[in-house]
């Protein structure tokens, strides 16, 4: 798909930080995987929350806030469980509010700025289509928490995918301006899709043990679904771009730090506050 190869990562990176490979033992690997699942949901939930009160109509405002709620619910489950697996006394809140950029394991797609409504919907369409397929594969995970969240969340994500797909179609097959905007939105987000399908030693390790899913297993389904919606929207798939990878190893765009500054400001200023 890509015309240029991804950047080679240092094979000998150690310690904790960007580009590190987690130890391939069941505990640390599961912790790392739960962070990936949880951080994707948390960061996109936070991004969508930025629309609250700003969406083009009240119905859309409600939809995006509800997406955010679903995603933050997923994140709570995954990150609480990650804290248990890690065994260092951190819960979901500690993981969400007291980690810095380099310790986040989300993909680049979810941290991208909202842009206009079309760019947000393009991002949602590309992500929710992927997340639904992922959760379907995780239904049979041997980790009961992952399987349980997948079972609940797959129904919710089906709504996300449907709504985002409907908007891609409505904008693509709409006015000249709406078409231009959704084309721009898809083109902006397109380079972050290959990362969703990146297999690394961690995904292989956990897929072999029936805990995680190898995204390569549903790449063809994803491409078919995306192509079919774009065809209905009378849109051509954007030109392939050099894929950007690294989020799973803690290497992020400059946007994530700004997002975390807003999200973490209150709990870091007033630690452990309750109301």
């Amino acid at each position, binding site marked *: 798909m890509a015309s240029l190869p991804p950047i080679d990562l240092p094979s000998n990176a150690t310690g904790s930080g960007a580009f590190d490979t987690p130890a391939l033992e069941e505990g640390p690997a599961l912790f790392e995987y739960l962070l990936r699942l949880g951080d994707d949901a948390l960061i996109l939930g936070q991004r969508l929350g930025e629309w609250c009160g700003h969406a083009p109509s009240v*119905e859309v405002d409600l*939809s995006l806030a*509800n997406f955010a709620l*679903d995603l933050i619910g997923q994140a709570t489950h995954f990150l609480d469980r990650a804290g248990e697996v890690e065994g260092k006394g951190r819960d979901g809140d500690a993981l969400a509010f007291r980690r810095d950029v380099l310790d986040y394991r989300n993909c680049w797609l979810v941290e991208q700025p909202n842009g206009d409504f079309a760019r947000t919907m393009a991002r949602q369409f590309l992500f929710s289509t992927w997340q639904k397929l992922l959760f379907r594969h995780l239904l049979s995970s041997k980790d*009961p928490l992952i399987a349980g969240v997948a*079972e609940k969340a797959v129904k919710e994500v089906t*709504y996300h995918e449907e709504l985002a797909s409907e908007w891609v179609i409505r904008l693509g097959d709409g006015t000249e301006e709406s078409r231009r905007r959704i084309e721009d939105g898809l083109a902006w987000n397109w380079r972050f899709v290959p990362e969703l399908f990146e297999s690394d030693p961690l995904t292989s390790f956990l897929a072999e043990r029936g805990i995680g899913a190898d995204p390569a297993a549903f790449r063809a389904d994803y491409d078919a679904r995306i192509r079919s919606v774009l065809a209905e929207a009378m849109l051509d798939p954007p030109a392939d771009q050099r894929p950007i990878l690294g989020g799973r190893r803690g290497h992020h765009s400059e946007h994530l730090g700004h997002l975390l500054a807003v999200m973490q400001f209150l709990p870091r200023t007033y630690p452990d506050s309750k109301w």
Partner: protein
Amino acid sequence: MESIRAVLAQVPDPEIPVISVVELGIVRSVEPHRVVITPTYTGCPATRVIERDIRDALDSAGYRHVAIETALSPAWTTDWISEEGRRKLRAYGIAPPTKAAVECPQCGSAETEEISRFGSTPCKAQWRCRACAEPFDLFKCH
């Protein structure tokens, strides 16, 4: 002493107080020493309130020793809302979940249409009746 189930039947859903947590179908099992509940939506903020309300109800009925456990699987579905729960939803102005045509809870007409897939809570969508022109909430099939 009231049975545990009778105590739970008095605990209203915090978002839709006309139905109880039992009628909503989130109480999965009642045993002498534990109650198992299952959340409706993954991120529903009512889940924590429900757990607290159940705790309070059990405590004040003398069931401090009864533990509350949460089970994610099998996932909650609107099929678990009882017939009585559905009747109460309709009387309250919320169309109960249905796979057939959605009927207006005000006038009963099936001439209805969706306004928005999402509403005031994760479990509801906004609909409108073309016969009586009233907007209403639909409890989504889930």
